[in-house]
C-alpha cells in the first residue's frame, strides 16, 4: 500500500498541471453552458427543439469531459525526458506495479470528470428537467474510451523511445499515428455518406440512453483500459537494446 501511495503521489504531482488545466477548461465550459439554462429555467423546455438543444449541451459536455479524462497526460514522455524511465528499472517497484499506479491515476481522473458531468446533468435537470443523464454518461464514457484509444496508440509507439534523443522521433511518429487513426475512423464513419451518417448519429443518440448501451460502452471502456494497462506494463518492462 505504501508503495502505491508513493507511486501515485509521484504521478499526481507530475500530471496535476495537465489535469488542472483540463479541469479549469471543463469547469469554465460547464459554467458557460449552465448560465443560459439557469436563466431560461422558468420557461422550461416545452418544444422538441429545446429538448434537442439541451441534448446537444450534453454531447458537448461529454466530449470535453471525455477529452479531459481520456487524453494522454504525457507522463511517459516526461519520464523519458528526465531519465526516470531508465532509473525506474533500478528501483524496487515492478513494471506491473508502476503500470497499475498509472492506471489508478487515470481512472481517478475519469471518475472526477465523470462526477462533474453527472453534476452538470443534475443541475440542468433541476432547471429544465429534460436532460437524459444516462445518455450523457454513456456519451462521456464512449468519448473517454475513444480518447484513451488514441492514448494507447501514442504510448505504444512512444515506448520505443529510450531517451531525449529518441523522444522527438517517436513522439512525431506517435502523433502522426494518432492523426492517421483519427482520419481512418472518420473515413469509415463517413463512407456511407453524410446523410446516412447523420441518420446513424440520430439513431445512436436515441439508443444511447438505454441500459444495454451502457453495458456495451462499459465493455468497450474496459477493453481499452486493459489495452492501455498492457501498453504501460510493456513500456515499463521494456529493456534498452
Amino acid at each position: 500500500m505504501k508503495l502505491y501511495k508513493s507511486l501515485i503521489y509521484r504521478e499526481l504531482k507530475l500530471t496535476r498541471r495537465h489535469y488542472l488545466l483540463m479541469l479549469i477548461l471543463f469547469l469554465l465550459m460547464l459554467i458557460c453552458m449552465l448560465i443560459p439554462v439557469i436563466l431560461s429555467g422558468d420557461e422550461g423546455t416545452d418544444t422538441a427543439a429545446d429538448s434537442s438543444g439541451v441534448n446537444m449541451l450534453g454531447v458537448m459536455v461529454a466530449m470535453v469531459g471525455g477529452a479531459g479524462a481520456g487524453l494522454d497526460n504525457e507522463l511517459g514522455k516526461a519520464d523519458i525526458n528526465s531519465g526516470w524511465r531508465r532509473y525506474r528499472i533500478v528501483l524496487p517497484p515492478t513494471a506491473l506495479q508502476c503500470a497499475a499506479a498509472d492506471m489508478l491515476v487515470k481512472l481517478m481522473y475519469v471518475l472526477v470528470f465523470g462526477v462533474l458531468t453527472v453534476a452538470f446533468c443534475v443541475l440542468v435537470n433541476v432547471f429544465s428537467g429534460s436532460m437524459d443523464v444516462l445518455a450523457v454518461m454513456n456519451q462521456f464514457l464512449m468519448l473517454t474510451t475513444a480518447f484513451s484509444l488514441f492514448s494507447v496508440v501514442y504510448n505504444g509507439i512512444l515506448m520505443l523511445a529510450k531517451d531525449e534523443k529518441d523522444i522527438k522521433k517517436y513522439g512525431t511518429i506517435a502523433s502522426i499515428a494518432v492523426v492517421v487513426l483519427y482520419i481512418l475512423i472518420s473515413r469509415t464513419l463517413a463512407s456511407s455518406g453524410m446523410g446516412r451518417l447523420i441518420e446513424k448519429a440520430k439513431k445512436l443518440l436515441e439508443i444511447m440512453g438505454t441500459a444495454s448501451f451502457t453495458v456495451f460502452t462499459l465493455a468497450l471502456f474496459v477493453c481499452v483500459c486493459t489495452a492501455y494497462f498492457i501498453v504501460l506494463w510493456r513500456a515499463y518492462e521494456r529493456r534498452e537494446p
Partner: protein
Amino acid sequence: MNDYENAVEIKGVTKKYDGFTLDNISFDIPKGCIMGFIGQNGAGKTTTIRSLLHITDIDGGEIRLLGLDHIKDETTIKKRIAVVFDELPFHDIFNARDMSRIFEGMYPEWDNAAYLKYIERFQLPEKKKIGQFSKGMKMKLQIACALSHNAELLVMDEATTGLDPVVRDEILHIFMEYLQNGERSILMSSHITSDLEKIADMVTFIDKGKILLTGYKDEIIERHGILKCGKDKLAEIDTEDIVSIRTNSFGAEIMVNDRENAGCKYRDCVIDPAKLDDIMLYYVHKDEKEWS
C-alpha cells in the same frame, strides 16, 4: 538476507552492439570493497553497468549481485542496491522533500532521518525545485537518496564526472564513511583515476569492451613500474616484461608488469612507480607495443 562472498560476480558477459562488443568480461567485487571501474569514454563501462543492473539484456554470461541472479531475483536485489547515474534522473518540478516521499514507499528500509541528515550535510534546500539546482547539488541529492535506504551495494556510473574537486572530495569522503561497517560494497565507474586512486580497494580496467586488468589497487600499483632507458637498450628488455613502450626524443618509457623482477633484471635502468593513470594509458596501447 543471504550470505554472500562477492557483492558482484560477472562471468563471461557478452553484449553485442553494432560497432561495439562487450567481450566475455569477468570480474568480482568482494563484499566490503570499493571497486574502481576504469576506462576511457566508450570503453564499455556504462554497458557493463547497464548489463548488471538489467537495464539492458546480455547476450551471454552470468551476473550475480549480492549472491543472487540479476534477472531471476531482480526485485529482491533492487531493494538492496542503490544506483547513481552521471545525470540526475529526477523531474525538475520535484524538490528534496518530494523525493523522500517518493522513495519512502519504494524502499522497505528507507530511513528518512538519514536522508534529512544528508540533505542538511550537503546544504541542500528542501523546498527548492530540483530544476533550479546546480550540477553539484543535483549529484548530492542523488547520492543522498542512494545512501538513505541502507543499500548493500552502491553502483555509480561516472557519478563524480563534471563536479569540482571540492565537491568530489566531499562525496568521496562520504563513500568512505558509508563503507565503514564492512557489509557494504561500491562499484564506481570513472575515467578520473585520481578519485579512484584515493578510495578504491580494487580496480578493473576496461578497454574496447575487454577487461585488461582487474585486482587489488595497491597490488596493481606495486606490481607495475615505468622503466626509463635509451632506445638502444630496448632490445635488451624481455617482451614478456613489457606492457607497452612509449617512445620520445630522449628515449623510451616502458611499462613493466613486474617491477621487482624488472629492478633485478635491468639494474642499470631507472624504474619509477606507476600511477593508475599511467597503467591505464600503457594498457590501452598494449596492442601497439610501441607508441609515442
